[in-house]
């Protein structure tokens, strides 16, 4: 086994090296936000000798709090809606093999590869027509629409592996399709649901292009749009830019720290084993 070839110590050396590489840029960001500009440029890797929170003061004098709340609102609504709608649709498609179902699924799946940038223009046109520019609903709706194909694909793929025997037993007990879905299908779906929540959450949180174009007023901007502008305003002030980046990263880092147990548990425990 690898264990014997590398030895425990050298294996840890490799892993620690990888961790250093993974953490390096984040370390630059955090320490950079606490240093002076010249400190950063002269000794980028050194610990801040004289840490200062001055850069964060500039950051919070900006509109970070508002942007943060906007991002939370948009991301959570979009992901929640996506998960519910995708799960229903995936189960609907898998459970009722109507004619043309595969065509429908094929089309849905092929939409996964459509880059959002190509939809920007027509979507903006629709948004303007509806008078929905600078509203959350247009952004949430577009996010949901963009996340659905991948989510449906993943869930449908999973659902069809659920043994029919389980479902039949429940149906014989007189459970309605919805009850079957809720009591049997969903509890089995930890792995794909956990994966999807993470993938979608990160995607929606980090989405820049659509948010930028659709949310044009200051009070509606998401964090990503906000920090992009922030970065261009302070582009010469490295500590301040870094502080802004730290603030933009923290919510997700915190969410990950608290949520990873559930995420990992979902990934490992949800799947069907030893059929």
């Amino acid at each position, binding site marked *: 086994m690898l264990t014997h070839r590398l030895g425990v110590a050298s294996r840890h050396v490799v892993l620690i090296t990888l961790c250093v590489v993974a953490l390096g*840029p984040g370390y630059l960001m955090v320490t950079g936000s606490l240093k002076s500009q010249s400190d950063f440029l002269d000794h980028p890797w050194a610990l801040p000798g004289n840490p200062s929170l001055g850069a964060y003061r500039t950051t919070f004098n900006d509109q970070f709090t508002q942007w943060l709340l906007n991002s939370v609102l948009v991301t959570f609504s979009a992901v929640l809606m996506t998960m519910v709608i995708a799960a229903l*649709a995936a189960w609907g498609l898998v459970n009722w093999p109507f004619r043309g179902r595969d065509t429908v699924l*094929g089309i849905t799946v*092929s939409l996964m590869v459509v880059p959002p940038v*190509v939809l920007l223009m027509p979507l903006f046109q629709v948004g303007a027509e509806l008078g929905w520019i600078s509203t959350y609903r247009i952004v949430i709706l577009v996010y949901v629409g963009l996340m659905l194909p991948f989510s449906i694909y993943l869930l449908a793929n999973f659902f069809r592996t659920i043994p029919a025997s389980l479902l039949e037993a429940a149906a014989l007990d007189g459970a309605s399709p919805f009850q079957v879905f809720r009591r049997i299908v969903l509890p089995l779906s930890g792995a794909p649901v956990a994966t999807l929540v993470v993938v979608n959450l990160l995607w929606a949180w980090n989405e820049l292009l659509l948010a930028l174009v659709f949310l044009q007023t200051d009070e509606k901007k998401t964090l990503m749009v906000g920090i992009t502008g922030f970065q261009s305003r302070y582009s010469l002030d490295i500590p301040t830019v*870094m502080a802004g980046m730290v603030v933009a990263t923290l919510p997700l880092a915190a969410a990950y720290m608290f949520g990873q147990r559930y995420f990992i548990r979902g990934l490992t425990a949800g799947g069907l084993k030893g059929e």
Partner: protein
Amino acid sequence: MTTDVASVGPAPRPVRRGLAHRLGPLPWVAPAALAILFVFAYSMFELARQSFQYEDAWVGFENFSLVLSDPLFRTAIWHNTLLLLAVPVLVLLALLVAVMLFETRRGIVAYRAILFLPYILPIPVIGVVFGQLLQLNGALNGTLDGLGLGSLTHDWLGNPQLALWTMGGVIVWKEVGFGIVLFLARMMSLPEDVYESAKLDGAGFFRMHWHVTIPQMRPLVIFYVISEAIVMVSWVFNYVFVMTNGQGGPGTSTVVTELYIYRTAFQDQAPELASAAAVLLFLSTLVLIVGFFRVQRADGGTFGD
């Protein structure tokens, strides 16, 4: 469109039959259908229409031939193709690290958490931090010099021969954590007895993972390959945008198809060419995805056994 590409195979036996059965999926599928129609149907129709028009007049395939004759478009497509090479790197790296973690166990929680961190960093952060890190006189080259590896220093983003590979490297750096966590989770949920019997047979490292781990992981690997391939072809815009200030530079060395479409539509104000390019990108990605599904069809579900 080939209908079998996404076939989900034989469904479990339907719960009900008859008319109710035929209308059954409707309420389940309707919300998704509406949302997808809202976002895609009109847009795709508009795209297709615009790609054949110029200022509301039909021009046949003229837009397509203009796009195809643009050396920049061909360059952009080629760059996407090159970026696909990062996918096998991602998969191998993620598998290797996952196996190492799986066998190490000690410290696994900390390692896993740290290695996943790059995946959650916002894209603008990547632009800013790597922009500083990879400057010719930046922290990376400074470190290499300090380690006596001065010969390895490069103008990572400033050298047109190198910039695309640097970009690929940054993408791997950010995306690999996701693969590690996915693969590791799968390994840990594999039944122990599989390994026990393999060990009893005296299987070595490579044989064991080749014959036991990999086959068990196959659907998940395919899932990861597909999602990363989509990243390289259709979702790579953000990376290029933030790391080259929207230029795709130096020169055209990091222009990818999405950036080409974006700039054609919004900078050069040629929406009809952007639409034609978008249709071409869509068609080529479709070919890609069909290929993947052909492979996957032989396998089981993504997360199933």
